[in-house]
């Protein structure tokens, strides 16, 4: 795995005054309008720590909010099964994670279909094998062939079995979050995960201005176990937020900070990531739209706000509304990924595989996105200004009009001098035709097959594996007799 650190100038879109104006507007929203929390205990906690609770709605004043937001660490390390794959979240570090949540998968040969546990495992394998994906993610696809009540166990087990990269916890209920913590304890040890989190879970704010009961149940479980969370307002501007960037970002900022403050009230120092999942809707049909320029502006601003509060930032992804890994998918994804990197996003969910507004995980799309992620690694590294990089000896060797192909400097560097995309074709037209005239979709399809065929599982301690399987079997048996609560 190749870590990626951002060594370029950070693109701050707003002036200091602009940041202050967004902040002030968010404070106004929190003070005058408040945020709804649909959980009695959560509201009790908020009240006990000084927030003004009226009915379901919680009002915050600035001083109280910032006091608790200030308790969140600005950087933390998430443990991976293989310590070499531990990820640092915050600062100049960037972490790329796979697509999340899609109920369908798509590939060239099989078309669009409901996702299964097998697909889930395939995506975990692809993420494990890519040097440019640093994290195994969470619900890489929704395994719709497994019973809803026990699916989370199969997903967690698959992450641990087929990968040794860090992974995310379940957020489908408080009980499922507790199962995730129990599993992390088996793999990493109960004490160890309290020092460094082994789970990073996705808490969505159900915008506008609303935390639902499931998310709050999960926040309580994870905060108490000191596991990391990404607090993400998910706003499709136009529907869940106003049609203007400034207002939408102020709303997002208010919602994220309120959730982060709650986590700190429950357990000061709980690692959290300030999340921003912000796109637009097509106001002519109501359909979600991704890769729109307005959402990029909003991404930059929300990243800047997270830096303002000294918090790690999540945003962006290889988003697209396209149904296939076609031109639209490529353009839209890159339109978002470049700002994602330039905003110095610390955690990038959906960095590979996303299609059709998040309904579909695409196999070919996944490997194509990884290709772009590879390029972004090179780009984010910045410029080497060492003597070796200035290459005086090479100039000395080459007379005016000569070439550099044989210099000692070139011999030292040619193998990794330039990023070579494996899935893009650099041949002459004639050669390309001789090779079969394949397009990127064909090549990506072949690549997926080749990767899955050559996959080898990372080692897993036999004792740990046994305890995991016992735990899963025992939970499945218990869940089978529990009354089904949808």
């Amino acid at each position, binding site marked *: 795995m190749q870590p990626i650190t951002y060594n370029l100038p950070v693109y701050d879109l707003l002036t200091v005054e602009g940041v202050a104006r967004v902040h002030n507007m968010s404070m106004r929203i929190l003070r005058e309008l408040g945020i709804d929390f649909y959980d009695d205990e959560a509201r009790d906690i908020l009240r006990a720590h000084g927030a003004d609770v009226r009915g379901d709605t919680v009002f915050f004043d600035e001083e109280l909010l910032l006091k608790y937001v200030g308790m969140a660490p600005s950087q933390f390390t998430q443990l991976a099964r293989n310590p070499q794959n531990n990820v640092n979240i915050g600062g100049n570090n960037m972490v790329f994670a796979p697509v999340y949540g899609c109920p369908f998968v798509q590939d060239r040969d099989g078309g669009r279909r409901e996702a299964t546990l097998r697909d889930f495992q395939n995506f975990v394998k692809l993420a494990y094998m890519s040097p440019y994906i640093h994290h195994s993610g969470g619900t890489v696809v929704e395994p719709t062939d497994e019973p809803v009540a026990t699916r989370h166990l199969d997903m967690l087990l698959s992450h641990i079995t087929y990968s040794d990269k860090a992974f995310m916890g379940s957020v489908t209920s408080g009980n499922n979050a507790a199962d995730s913590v129990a599993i992390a304890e088996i793999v990493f040890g109960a004490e160890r995960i309290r020092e460094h989190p082994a789970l990073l879970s996705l808490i969505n704010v159900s915008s506008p201005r609303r935390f*639902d009961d499931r998310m709050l149940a999960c926040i309580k479980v994870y905060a108490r176990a000191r596991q990391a969370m990404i607090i993400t307002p998910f706003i499709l501007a136009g529907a869940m937020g106003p049609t203007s960037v400034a207002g939408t970002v102020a709303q997002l900022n208010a919602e994220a900070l309120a959730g982060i403050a709650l986590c700190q009230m429950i357990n000061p120092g709980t690692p959290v990531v300030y999340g921003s999942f912000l796109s637009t809707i097509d106001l*002519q049909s109501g359909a979600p739209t991704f890769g729109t320029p307005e959402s990029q502006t909003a991404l930059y601003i929300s990243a800047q706000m997270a830096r303002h509060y000294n918090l790690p930032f999540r945003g962006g992804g290889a988003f697209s509304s396209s149904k296939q890994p076609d031109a639209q998918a490529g353009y839209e994804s890159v339109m978002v990924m470049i700002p994602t990197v330039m905003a110095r996003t610390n955690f990038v969910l959906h960095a590979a595989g996303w299609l059709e507004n998040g309904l579909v995980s695409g196999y070919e799309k996944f490997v194509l996105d990884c290709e772009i992620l590879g390029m972004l690694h090179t780009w984010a590294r910045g410029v080497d200004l060492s003597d070796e990089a200035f290459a005086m000896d090479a100039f000395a060797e080459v007379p005016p009009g000569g070439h550099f192909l044989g210099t000692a400097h070139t011999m030292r560097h040619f193998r990794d001098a330039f990023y070579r995309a494996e899935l893009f074709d650099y041949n002459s037209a004639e050669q390309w035709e001789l090779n079969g005239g394949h397009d990127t979709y064909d090549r990506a399809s072949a690549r997926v097959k080749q990767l899955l065929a050559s996959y080898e599982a990372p080692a897993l301690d036999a004792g740990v594996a046994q305890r995991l399987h016992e735990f899963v079997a025992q939970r499945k048996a218990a869940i089978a007799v529990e009354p089904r609560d*949808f």
Partner: protein
Amino acid sequence: MDFSDLSDEDLWLQMQDDLYDGMKEEVAAETREALTRGFSPQEVLGQGLVAGMDIVGVDFRDGVLFVPEVLMAANAMKAGMEILRPLLAETGAERIGTMIIGTVKGDIHDIGKNLVAMMMEGAGFEVINLGINNDADKFLEAIKTHQPDIIGMSALLTTTMPYMKVVIDALGEEGLRDTLYVMVGGAPVTETFAKAVGADAYGRDAAVAVELAKAYMAKRRAA
């Protein structure tokens, strides 16, 4: 608002225009004016409201109108319908239909469901929107209160989609299933899934939902 100088023909046109422009008060006033002129509630509905909403429907489909404009138009339609509905009932006219729609338990996605509700209202249906996170009891209660023709359920999560079956089974237990038309929808829902849970129809989008509902009501009237 004074419409006395408008000919009947111009009144219909004015009504259609105002509907298109989402002018709620105007449409209500024009509805009353047409009734005062002696037109039957059914004539007002057909020549004014429905004719106007047909144009809105076409322009929405063709991408001329934006969602907020359709929302305003649907609200204007609703204002007119509120005046006409009791009169239509009195005259024993054929009802356009009543629908109860809600997102199922555990699910709070409602943008798509609200679009469906809006388009249904635009088509003249009376819509009772139960909002989000509805368990079977809420659906049953609403059915008893409102005596709908159609039940619409929305779910956007594979974890909440199975709850549609819970509601459909509950309808069966209460002996309500056969008299109701059950439509389901939401991005991850498919035709196959709809069949599997025992729904009558799957609606890919709001426009399809309206077509299905209209076709069902027509069939029911014919029966």
